[in-house]
């Protein structure tokens, strides 16, 4: 009568490796210096990426699952997981150079970061709503601690705001999850998709209410307007290394959850797409308009993260095949360009408040390498053609446009024109004649940051010229149509 649980190690291995890094940072922190632990964590992240690559299933192969489908190591999970690992490695590498200045260079920082990555991978690999929720909570709790960990008033304020608003978001999400379970009687993505497959699913009101609450909860996590209010304060108040992590890895994971839930489980459910469309329109307007008026560069990047949430979420409006591929491509590109830009801020800032946009004037004459790299990142964020940001935006707009969201696509194009202004103004200032005294932090070597920035900029350039290097893996619509399983 007792059925033994369906335990398989291989699909769980990428998550277990990261968790091992987190636990070893917690325990070995008493014996080893922090930089050694960071190196161990970097190696474990690489191993985790290798384990994910081994889970890739070719055409015709069934994806590896475990725990009766609670854990799905399908190709979508592998691709999103690799993006998460890339962002986490950027954050760890940058922290090697800047953690001491940010007063974060202790083992607990690494431990919390790796716990957060464990949660993000659980979301990407989830096969039912409960696992997704627990992954989200692990990630959120660890992120609240990361944002607060620096011993300063700014960080404490940012962490408390993040904690309070994030908890409300989680509560809304759990309520929505309960309503969806009540409407469909299933927690697994596949079961929900099957229960909502008919044209008139039972308990329609409950299903719509649950889907909208889920949308609001995820809206908090990815910072869709009007749920974005915490984003600028948290991203600009937290230490820059943490902002890098929060605005890349945490956002990628929240989008992975949205993709699983809305692109997989609820793809047949009515009404959420219309609501999402309105949220995206509000996000595009608010994010881009607020970015125009920022004077602090770090805060401008925070608002640009809100604006990019709008662009990224447009991919969710496409058909699962096209939209999933667009989102997968854009998420990696977004991670690389935002990560590289914030890495430069972390290296050059005098204080954790970041630097003013006017301080960037003439940076080319003082730090030519950083200036050129920052200009490339800003051009990519603005979506200028030789860089990968252009292709990501194009794919997202195309996915929404082809599914009939014409006016939203027009609004997004207009918004990205407005975005040119606030991205290219600092980019031009970089190359202006240098008349002001240097305002950058003058001390120290930054080998790891230089490596991160070089790799990030090289990647966005190469992916912009040869997008198929990454898009070729994503392009198969079957990957994204099977998000919920069969």
């Amino acid at each position, binding site marked *: 009568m007792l059925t033994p649980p369906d335990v398989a190690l291989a699909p769980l291995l990428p998550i277990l490796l990261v968790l091992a890094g987190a636990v070893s940072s917690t325990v070995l922190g008493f014996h080893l210096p922090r930089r050694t632990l960071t190196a161990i964590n970097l190696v474990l992240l690489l191993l985790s990426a290798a384990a994910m690559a081994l889970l890739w299933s070719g055409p015709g192969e069934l994806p590896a699952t475990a725990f009766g489908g609670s854990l799905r190591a399908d190709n979508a999970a592998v691709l999103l997981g690799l993006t998460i690992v890339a962002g986490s490695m950027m954050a760890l590498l940058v922290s090697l*150079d800047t953690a001491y200045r940010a*007063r974060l260079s202790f083992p607990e920082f690494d431990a919390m970061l790796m*716990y957060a990555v464990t949660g993000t991978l659980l979301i990407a690999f989830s096969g039912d709503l409960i696992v997704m929720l627990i992954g989200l909570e692990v990630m959120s709790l660890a992120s609240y601690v990361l944002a607060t960990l620096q011993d300063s008033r700014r960080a404490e304020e940012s962490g408390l705001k993040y904690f309070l608003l994030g908890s409300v978001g989680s509560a809304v999400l759990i309520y929505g999850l309960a309503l969806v379970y009540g409407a469909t009687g299933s927690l697994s993505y596949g079961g929900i998709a099957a229960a909502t497959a008919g044209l008139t699913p039972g*308990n329609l009101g409950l299903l719509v209410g649950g889907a909208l609450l889920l949308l609001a909860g995820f809206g908090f996590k990815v910072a869709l307007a009007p749920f974005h209010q915490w984003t600028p304060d948290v991203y600009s108040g937290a230490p820059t290394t943490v902002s890098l992590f929060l605005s890349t890895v945490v956002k990628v994971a929240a989008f992975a959850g949205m993709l699983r839930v809305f692109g997989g489980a609820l793809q047949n459910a009515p009404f959420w797409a219309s609501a999402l469309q309105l949220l995206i329109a509000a996000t595009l307007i608010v994010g881009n308009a607020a970015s125009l008026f920022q004077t602090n560069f770090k805060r401008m990047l925070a608002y640009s993260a809100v604006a990019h949430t709008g662009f990224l979420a447009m991919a969710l409006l496409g058909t699962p095949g096209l939209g999933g591929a667009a989102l997968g491509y854009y998420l990696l590109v977004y991670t690389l360009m935002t990560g590289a830009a914030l890495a430069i801020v972390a290296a050059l800032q005098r*204080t954790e408040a970041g630097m003013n946009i006017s301080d960037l004037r003439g940076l080319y004459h003082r730090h030519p390498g950083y200036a050129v790299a920052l200009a490339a990142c800003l051009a990519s964020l603005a979506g200028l053609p030789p860089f990968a940001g252009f292709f990501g935006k194009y794919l997202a707009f195309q996915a929404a446009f082809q599914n009939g969201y014409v006016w939203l696509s027009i609004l997004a194009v207009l918004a990205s024109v407005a975005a040119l202004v606030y991205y290219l103004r600092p980019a031009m200032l970089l190359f202006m004649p240098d008349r002001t005294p240097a305002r950058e932090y003058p001390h120290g070597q930054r080998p790891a940051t230089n490596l991160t920035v070089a790799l990030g900029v090289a990647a966005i350039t190469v992916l912009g010229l040869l997008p198929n290097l990454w898009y070729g893996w994503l392009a198969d619509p079957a990957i994204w149509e099977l998000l919920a399983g069969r």
Partner: protein
Amino acid sequence: MIAFLLLGALALVGAVVTVAARNAVHAALGLVGTLLSVAGLFASLSASFLAAVQVIVYAGAILVLFLFVIMLLNAHQPVTGRDPVPFVRELAGIGGVILAGALAVIAFSYRDPQPLAQGTAALRGGTAGAVGETLLTRFLLPFEAVSVLLLVAIVGAVALVRRPAPQPDGVTDAEGVALPGELPERTAPEGGVRA
């Protein structure tokens, strides 16, 4: 049915007290009433193990912690501040009534996706055995993942309460090593420090 209505009404009264009370201790006691009534609801649905856990964990452990914190932080004085947002009570009341109406409509049109007999059979009288078996077979991964969640909460809380000392990193040179006791932006004049 009568038990259900009574317990439901008690849970609602407790919830209203929790929200409306100006004294934090009263609010916590209202929450006790709600939690006990919900435990009674579980018992009336023959989920006996869940009812016992609800009483022991929520009404027992967590509420006692709440009360301890309220007493320790001296938060048991009534709140006298005014809400800065106008009409928030009225709006919340109207919204609550609309929500209650919508939920009532949904509740009366609800069709259970699982046949009731199937659910009752799976419950097996709500004993600990049925709950444990489900936790360790069907919900094994969430069950294990929750332990990671608790670990994160513990490590995070300890790290925040006793912030460790930053370790020098070897890449910051001599001048950079001297960490200011407080972040420089709080002492430096606006506009940054001239080099």
